């Protein structure tokens, strides 16, 4: 379980997280939604110890992320950041192999290589495995980073806008993959999504943020309501049920 208690973070005068409390039980897919600047990335960074909270705490399976050893956490929790830029020139396979570092400490075993090949296959990267990252399109690069994160083979996977730059086909494949990771491998997936319809379709649990505060939390049915969405996005959206799925459309 990931437990966030009283998380507060400011940049200067700007309070980006304001006393956030959140309990994410093990298993399942949780979608984090909210407008730009709501604090989603900041919350994810604090959960994955990349940022330090000004107040409050985050624990993963009872381990406080700010005090637990980094290599212990790295075997439990993996994170995809929103922006990924590298100075070094790496191939896709090199990058994905780094995902095994928490387990292999740089000496990849046969078992590690099996994981690498599987991640490459899951993300449809086999043909690109030996290409350099700077020779890929944005979406292909995004998939390479997701492959690295999945290759870490952790119980908890946090992904910040993994659908960035992906075409429709790969976006659907990505969401199915995350669903499978949760259903078949028992992983706990937390994913920042922009498209609330994707969130409603694939997530078990939706957390909506606004101005550094969690304003709503619940099942897709509970969040996909006109008055809730208005509060989150300041937009009037009409929710329809199409083929049994909830779909929000904005009024033109």
């Amino acid at each position, binding site marked *: 379980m990931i437990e966030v208690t009283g998380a507060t973070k400011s940049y200067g005068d700007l309070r980006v997280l304001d006393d956030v409390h959140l309990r994410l039980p093990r298993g399942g897919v949780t979608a984090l939604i909210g407008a730009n600047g709501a604090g989603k990335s900041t919350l994810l960074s604090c959960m994955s110890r990349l940022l330090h909270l000004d107040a409050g705490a985050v624990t993963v399976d009872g381990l406080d992320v700010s005090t637990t050893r980094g290599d212990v956490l790295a075997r439990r929790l993996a994170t995809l950041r929103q922006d990924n830029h590298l100075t*070094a020139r790496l191939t896709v396979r090199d990058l994905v192999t*780094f995902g095994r570092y928490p387990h292999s400490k740089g000496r990849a075993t046969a078992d590690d290589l099996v994981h690498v090949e599987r991640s490459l296959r899951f993300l449809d990267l086999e043909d690109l495995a030996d290409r350099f990252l700077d020779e890929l399109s944005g979406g292909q690069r995004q998939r390479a980073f997701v492959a690295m994160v999945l290759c870490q083979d952790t119980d908890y996977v946090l992904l910040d806008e993994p659908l960035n730059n992906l075409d429709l086909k790969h976006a659907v494949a990505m969401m199915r993959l995350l669903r499978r990771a949760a259903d078949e491998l028992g992983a706990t997936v937390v994913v920042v999504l922009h498209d609330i319809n994707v969130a409603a379709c694939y997530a078990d649990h939706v957390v909506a943020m606004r101005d550094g505060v969690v304003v709503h939390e619940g099942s897709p049915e509970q969040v996909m309501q006109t008055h809730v969405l208005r509060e989150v996005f300041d937009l009037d959206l009409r929710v329809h049920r199409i083929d049994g799925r909830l779909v929000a459309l904005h009024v033109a």
Partner: protein
Amino acid sequence: MMVLGLLVAVAALGFMTLGARGAWDYVLPFRGVKLAALVLVAFAIAVSTVLFQTVTDNRILTPSIMGFDALYVLLQTTVVFTVGSARMVGIDPRLRFTVEVLLMVGFAGLLFRWLFAGARRSLHLLLLVGIVLGVLFRSLSSFMQRLIDPNEFAVLQERFFASFNAVDSRLLGAAAVMVLGASLLAWRLRRSFDVLLLGRDNATMLGVDHRRAVTGVLVVVAVMVSVSTALVGPVTFFGLLVANLAYQLSGTHRHRAVLPVAVLLAVLCLVGGQVVLERVLGYDTALSVVIEFLGGLMFLTLLLRGSRR
């Protein structure tokens, strides 16, 4: 790497034998000491530059561009300034050297950890900070040099100009011990080097204690820069030249390949360059000028290419 190793061996052989006049049992030990010093300097500069670029996640800044060796010169000057050269003469140079290196580790460690271990800063800002720090250290040094009397100044001056010809060989033993110590520390951290290339955030997520790794590497860098500056004086662009050539030649990001290639290249440049320029062509102090010129060109190219991206 085989080819490089071979070239280095040839250069070393040439260095030991070419143009020798006089008795061999005088020439060989004499040149042997110089060769050892050059190899030590090459090793220190190559390793410190590559590791520095790894932890700072860039390929343009080097310890010397960031003012490390200017800081060392400043420390040396301060020591002479406060102790006085009369009393300096009485002090064992190795003791003085050790104290200077320790001071350097302390100061450089604090200063550069503050710069690099915290939030991510833009490369151009860092470059600017480095240049400003370098100028600051240099002008403080020259200010103090002006205040001390001419005799003391003479003691100092010989140490401040890069010369691969006039190596201070009394310090060789102490320098070798320090480089060895720093290398052992680097060896303990070696598994994290490749991961550090992914930048602070990715390395942290993969379980590397970034602060600890950066601190360790900065200590290694401070020791190695002190050693090379003490032996041959400050050299600005040499590290940049060999590090970037090594990245290109080794064609991989892995330090187990890049580091040896960088060291071999550095040795080849120093020893081979010395042989060709000074023994074969007969120029005297040209090597440092040539190396700085090529390194400077490389620096400009990298900057221009970087800013276009």
